[in-house]
Protein backbone atom coordinates (compact mmCIF):
# COMPACT_ATOMS: atom_id res chain seq x y z
CA UNK A 1 0.00 0.00 0.00
CA UNK A 2 2.82 2.36 0.76
CA UNK A 3 4.08 2.03 -2.79
CA UNK A 4 0.69 2.93 -4.30
CA UNK A 5 0.45 6.10 -2.20
CA UNK A 6 3.82 7.28 -3.44
CA UNK A 7 2.72 6.96 -7.07
CA UNK A 8 -0.44 9.01 -6.55
CA UNK A 9 1.61 12.02 -5.54
CA UNK A 10 2.49 12.72 -9.18
CA UNK A 11 0.86 15.96 -10.29
CA UNK A 12 -2.27 15.52 -12.37
CA UNK A 13 -1.89 18.80 -14.22
CA UNK A 14 -0.68 19.19 -17.77
CA UNK A 15 2.45 21.39 -17.76
CA UNK A 16 1.46 24.65 -19.45
CA UNK A 17 4.73 26.51 -19.14
CA UNK A 18 6.09 25.04 -22.39
CA UNK A 19 2.85 25.60 -24.31
CA UNK A 20 4.02 28.90 -25.81
CA UNK A 21 7.28 27.29 -26.90
CA UNK A 22 5.46 24.50 -28.70
CA UNK A 23 3.08 26.95 -30.33
CA UNK A 24 5.91 29.22 -31.48
CA UNK A 25 7.83 26.25 -32.83
CA UNK A 26 4.87 25.25 -34.99
CA UNK A 27 4.33 28.88 -35.94
CA UNK A 28 7.92 29.30 -37.12
CA UNK A 29 7.66 26.04 -39.07
CA UNK A 30 4.59 27.26 -40.97
CA UNK A 31 6.10 30.71 -41.50
CA UNK A 32 9.17 29.20 -43.07
CA UNK A 33 7.41 26.61 -45.21
CA UNK A 34 4.66 28.89 -46.55
CA UNK A 35 5.36 30.06 -50.08
CA UNK A 36 3.09 32.68 -51.52
CA UNK A 37 3.17 31.79 -55.18
CA UNK A 38 2.17 34.74 -57.27
CA UNK A 39 0.96 34.61 -60.81
CA UNK A 40 2.86 36.86 -63.14
CA UNK A 41 3.61 37.21 -66.79
CA UNK A 42 2.75 39.03 -69.99
CA UNK A 43 -1.03 39.16 -70.41
CA UNK A 44 -2.59 39.19 -73.86
CA UNK A 45 -6.13 38.83 -75.14
CA UNK A 46 -6.48 36.58 -78.17
CA UNK A 47 -9.08 37.45 -80.78
CA UNK A 48 -12.21 35.31 -80.67
CA UNK A 49 -12.63 32.70 -83.33
CA UNK A 50 -13.91 34.10 -86.59
CA UNK A 51 -13.22 37.62 -85.41
CA UNK A 52 -11.25 39.03 -88.30
CA UNK A 53 -10.82 42.70 -88.84
CA UNK A 54 -9.62 44.14 -92.10
CA UNK A 55 -6.76 46.48 -91.39
CA UNK A 56 -5.28 48.90 -93.81
CA UNK A 57 -1.69 47.93 -94.64
CA UNK A 58 -0.46 51.39 -93.77
CA UNK A 59 -1.49 50.82 -90.15
CA UNK A 60 0.51 47.64 -89.79
CA UNK A 61 4.07 47.23 -88.62
CA UNK A 62 5.25 43.74 -89.52
CA UNK A 63 7.71 42.27 -87.06
CA UNK A 64 9.10 39.02 -88.43
CA UNK A 65 11.08 36.88 -86.01
CA UNK A 66 13.63 34.57 -87.60
CA UNK A 67 14.71 31.22 -86.09
CA UNK A 68 18.08 32.75 -85.07
CA UNK A 69 16.35 35.51 -83.09
CA UNK A 70 16.99 38.33 -85.56
CA UNK A 71 14.00 40.54 -86.26
CA UNK A 72 12.94 41.80 -89.67
CA UNK A 73 10.85 44.96 -89.64
CA UNK A 74 8.56 45.68 -92.58
CA UNK A 75 6.45 48.83 -92.64
CA UNK A 76 3.05 48.27 -94.22
CA UNK A 77 3.28 47.59 -97.93
CA UNK A 78 6.77 48.87 -98.48
CA UNK A 79 9.02 46.01 -99.61
CA UNK A 80 11.94 47.40 -97.64
CA UNK A 81 13.10 45.09 -94.84
CA UNK A 82 15.11 46.31 -91.91
CA UNK A 83 16.94 43.66 -89.88
CA UNK A 84 17.52 44.52 -86.24
CA UNK A 85 18.14 42.88 -82.88
CA UNK A 86 15.07 42.48 -80.73
CA UNK A 87 16.35 44.99 -78.17
CA UNK A 88 15.83 47.73 -80.78
CA UNK A 89 12.16 46.87 -81.29
CA UNK A 90 10.87 49.14 -78.49
CA UNK A 91 12.74 52.15 -79.90
CA UNK A 92 11.39 51.47 -83.39
CA UNK A 93 7.86 51.01 -82.03
CA UNK A 94 7.95 54.29 -80.07
CA UNK A 95 9.17 56.13 -83.15
CA UNK A 96 6.59 54.58 -85.48
CA UNK A 97 3.62 54.98 -83.13
CA UNK A 98 4.39 58.66 -82.61
CA UNK A 99 3.83 59.11 -86.36
CA UNK A 100 0.75 56.87 -86.57
CA UNK A 101 -1.26 56.33 -83.37
CA UNK A 102 -3.43 53.65 -85.06
CA UNK A 103 -0.46 51.38 -85.66
CA UNK A 104 -0.83 47.64 -85.08
CA UNK A 105 2.14 45.42 -84.35
CA UNK A 106 1.89 42.17 -86.32
CA UNK A 107 4.36 39.80 -84.72
CA UNK A 108 5.05 36.84 -87.00
CA UNK A 109 7.31 34.16 -85.62
CA UNK A 110 9.00 31.42 -87.62
CA UNK A 111 7.64 27.97 -86.57
CA UNK A 112 11.12 26.75 -85.65
CA UNK A 113 12.08 29.84 -83.65
CA UNK A 114 12.36 29.24 -79.88
CA UNK A 115 9.46 30.63 -77.85
CA UNK A 116 11.78 32.98 -75.91
CA UNK A 117 12.42 35.10 -79.01
CA UNK A 118 8.71 35.79 -79.30
CA UNK A 119 8.53 36.62 -75.59
CA UNK A 120 11.50 38.99 -75.96
CA UNK A 121 9.77 40.91 -78.75
CA UNK A 122 6.44 40.90 -76.90
CA UNK A 123 8.29 42.18 -73.83
CA UNK A 124 9.81 45.02 -75.87
CA UNK A 125 6.42 45.96 -77.31
CA UNK A 126 4.64 45.87 -73.96
CA UNK A 127 7.47 47.84 -72.34
CA UNK A 128 6.95 50.48 -75.03
CA UNK A 129 3.25 50.57 -74.16
CA UNK A 130 1.93 48.81 -77.27
CA UNK A 131 -1.73 47.79 -76.90
CA UNK A 132 -2.58 46.46 -80.34
CA UNK A 133 -0.49 43.36 -80.93
CA UNK A 134 -1.32 40.49 -83.27
CA UNK A 135 0.52 37.19 -82.95
CA UNK A 136 0.88 34.93 -85.93
CA UNK A 137 3.05 32.18 -87.26
CA UNK A 138 5.34 33.04 -90.14
CA UNK A 139 4.47 31.09 -93.25
Amino acid at each position, binding site marked *: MAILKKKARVSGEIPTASMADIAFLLLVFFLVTTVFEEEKGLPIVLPE*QGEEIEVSQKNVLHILIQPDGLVNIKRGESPQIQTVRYSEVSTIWRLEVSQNPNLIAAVKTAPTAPYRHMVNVLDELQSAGAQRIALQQLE
Partner: protein
Amino acid sequence: MMQDRGFKRKSKASSDIPSSSLADMAFLLLIFFMVSTTFRKEQPRDVEVPEAAATQKLDTPRKHILHIYVEPDGSIYINDRVVPPEALGAYVRPLYEDSDRRLVMVLRADREVPYSVINQVQLQLQSANATHLTYYTNLEQRVRRERR
Protein backbone atom coordinates in the same frame (compact mmCIF):
# COMPACT_ATOMS: atom_id res chain seq x y z
CA MET B 1 19.12 62.22 -3.48
CA MET B 2 15.89 63.82 -2.31
CA GLN B 3 14.79 64.56 -5.84
CA ASP B 4 14.82 60.88 -6.72
CA ARG B 5 11.72 60.10 -4.66
CA GLY B 6 9.33 60.90 -7.46
CA PHE B 7 11.02 58.37 -9.70
CA LYS B 8 10.87 55.68 -7.09
CA ARG B 9 7.12 55.94 -6.82
CA LYS B 10 6.65 55.53 -10.56
CA SER B 11 8.73 52.37 -10.73
CA LYS B 12 6.18 50.56 -8.65
CA ALA B 13 4.39 49.53 -11.84
CA SER B 14 5.09 45.91 -12.70
CA SER B 15 8.05 45.52 -15.03
CA ASP B 16 7.11 41.99 -16.12
CA ILE B 17 5.85 41.33 -19.59
CA PRO B 18 2.53 39.49 -19.21
CA SER B 19 3.33 36.02 -20.47
CA SER B 20 0.09 34.22 -19.71
CA SER B 21 -1.45 35.29 -23.05
CA LEU B 22 1.68 34.41 -25.02
CA ALA B 23 0.44 30.95 -25.93
CA ASP B 24 -2.90 32.35 -27.06
CA MET B 25 -1.22 34.82 -29.36
CA ALA B 26 1.08 32.18 -30.76
CA PHE B 27 -1.81 29.81 -31.44
CA LEU B 28 -3.80 32.57 -33.10
CA LEU B 29 -0.95 33.27 -35.51
CA LEU B 30 -0.40 29.55 -35.99
CA ILE B 31 -4.02 28.93 -36.94
CA PHE B 32 -3.95 31.91 -39.30
CA PHE B 33 -0.95 30.52 -41.17
CA MET B 34 -2.36 26.98 -41.19
CA VAL B 35 -5.58 28.22 -42.76
CA SER B 36 -3.97 30.55 -45.28
CA THR B 37 -1.39 28.04 -46.48
CA THR B 38 -2.34 26.38 -49.73
CA PHE B 39 -0.40 23.41 -50.91
CA ARG B 40 0.33 23.05 -54.61
CA LYS B 41 -1.90 20.54 -56.29
CA GLU B 42 0.29 19.98 -59.30
CA GLN B 43 3.57 18.16 -59.60
CA PRO B 44 6.50 20.44 -60.36
CA ARG B 45 7.37 20.41 -64.06
CA ASP B 46 10.77 20.74 -65.58
CA VAL B 47 10.06 24.02 -67.36
CA GLU B 48 12.39 27.00 -67.62
CA VAL B 49 10.21 30.01 -68.36
CA PRO B 50 11.56 33.01 -70.28
CA GLU B 51 12.36 36.36 -68.69
CA ALA B 52 10.68 39.66 -69.44
CA ALA B 53 11.11 43.16 -68.07
CA ALA B 54 7.43 44.01 -68.61
CA THR B 55 6.28 41.16 -66.33
CA GLN B 56 3.05 42.08 -64.56
CA LYS B 57 1.43 40.64 -61.49
CA LEU B 58 -1.92 38.95 -62.09
CA ASP B 59 -4.81 39.82 -59.79
CA THR B 60 -6.96 36.90 -60.87
CA PRO B 61 -8.02 34.65 -57.97
CA ARG B 62 -6.33 31.30 -57.91
CA LYS B 63 -9.49 29.36 -58.70
CA HIS B 64 -9.83 31.21 -62.00
CA ILE B 65 -6.39 30.29 -63.22
CA LEU B 66 -5.54 27.32 -65.41
CA HIS B 67 -1.92 26.40 -65.87
CA ILE B 68 -0.84 25.01 -69.19
CA TYR B 69 2.63 23.56 -69.08
CA VAL B 70 4.66 23.04 -72.23
CA GLU B 71 7.80 21.01 -71.71
CA PRO B 72 10.96 21.39 -73.82
CA ASP B 73 9.96 18.37 -75.96
CA GLY B 74 6.66 20.07 -76.82
CA SER B 75 4.37 17.89 -74.68
CA ILE B 76 1.48 19.75 -73.05
CA TYR B 77 0.39 19.12 -69.46
CA ILE B 78 -2.75 20.37 -67.73
CA ASN B 79 -3.48 19.29 -64.13
CA ASP B 80 -0.71 16.67 -64.27
CA ARG B 81 -2.15 15.06 -67.37
CA VAL B 82 -0.76 14.96 -70.89
CA VAL B 83 -3.11 16.65 -73.30
CA PRO B 84 -2.55 16.07 -77.03
CA PRO B 85 -2.19 19.45 -78.80
CA GLU B 86 -5.20 18.84 -81.06
CA ALA B 87 -7.43 17.97 -78.04
CA LEU B 88 -6.49 21.05 -76.01
CA GLY B 89 -9.49 23.10 -77.13
CA ALA B 90 -11.91 20.32 -76.22
CA TYR B 91 -10.20 19.91 -72.84
CA VAL B 92 -10.28 23.62 -71.97
CA ARG B 93 -13.80 24.40 -73.20
CA PRO B 94 -15.78 22.74 -70.34
CA LEU B 95 -13.41 24.20 -67.74
CA TYR B 96 -13.89 27.62 -69.28
CA GLU B 97 -17.68 27.32 -69.35
CA ASP B 98 -17.74 26.12 -65.72
CA SER B 99 -15.76 29.16 -64.58
CA ASP B 100 -18.41 31.56 -65.95
CA ARG B 101 -15.96 32.63 -68.68
CA ARG B 102 -13.59 34.08 -66.14
CA LEU B 103 -10.83 31.52 -66.56
CA VAL B 104 -7.39 32.92 -67.35
CA MET B 105 -4.90 30.63 -69.03
CA VAL B 106 -1.36 30.86 -67.77
CA LEU B 107 1.04 29.37 -70.27
CA ARG B 108 4.17 28.07 -68.63
CA ALA B 109 6.17 27.09 -71.64
CA ASP B 110 9.86 26.32 -71.76
CA ARG B 111 11.97 29.02 -73.37
CA GLU B 112 13.32 26.69 -76.04
CA VAL B 113 9.98 25.31 -77.26
CA PRO B 114 9.52 25.92 -81.02
CA TYR B 115 6.95 28.62 -81.75
CA SER B 116 4.81 26.22 -83.81
CA VAL B 117 3.76 24.50 -80.54
CA ILE B 118 2.83 27.83 -78.93
CA ASN B 119 0.92 28.80 -82.06
CA GLN B 120 -1.08 25.60 -81.92
CA VAL B 121 -1.90 26.18 -78.24
CA GLN B 122 -3.14 29.67 -79.11
CA LEU B 123 -5.30 28.41 -81.96
CA GLN B 124 -6.78 25.68 -79.74
CA LEU B 125 -7.57 28.19 -77.00
CA GLN B 126 -9.22 30.45 -79.56
CA SER B 127 -11.37 27.55 -80.70
CA ALA B 128 -12.52 27.15 -77.06
CA ASN B 129 -13.11 30.92 -76.87
CA ALA B 130 -10.71 31.08 -73.93
CA THR B 131 -9.06 34.28 -75.04
CA HIS B 132 -7.40 35.56 -71.89
CA LEU B 133 -3.89 34.25 -72.02
CA THR B 134 -0.82 35.10 -69.99
CA TYR B 135 2.69 34.08 -70.92
CA TYR B 136 4.27 33.20 -67.59
CA THR B 137 7.62 34.96 -67.31
CA ASN B 138 10.12 35.79 -64.64
CA LEU B 139 10.90 39.42 -64.03
CA GLU B 140 14.05 40.53 -65.79
CA GLN B 141 16.10 43.35 -64.35
CA ARG B 142 16.62 46.26 -66.73
CA VAL B 143 20.31 46.50 -65.88
CA ARG B 144 20.93 42.93 -66.95
CA ARG B 145 18.93 43.45 -70.08
CA GLU B 146 20.96 46.44 -71.23
CA ARG B 147 24.20 44.56 -70.79
CA ARG B 148 23.20 41.87 -73.25
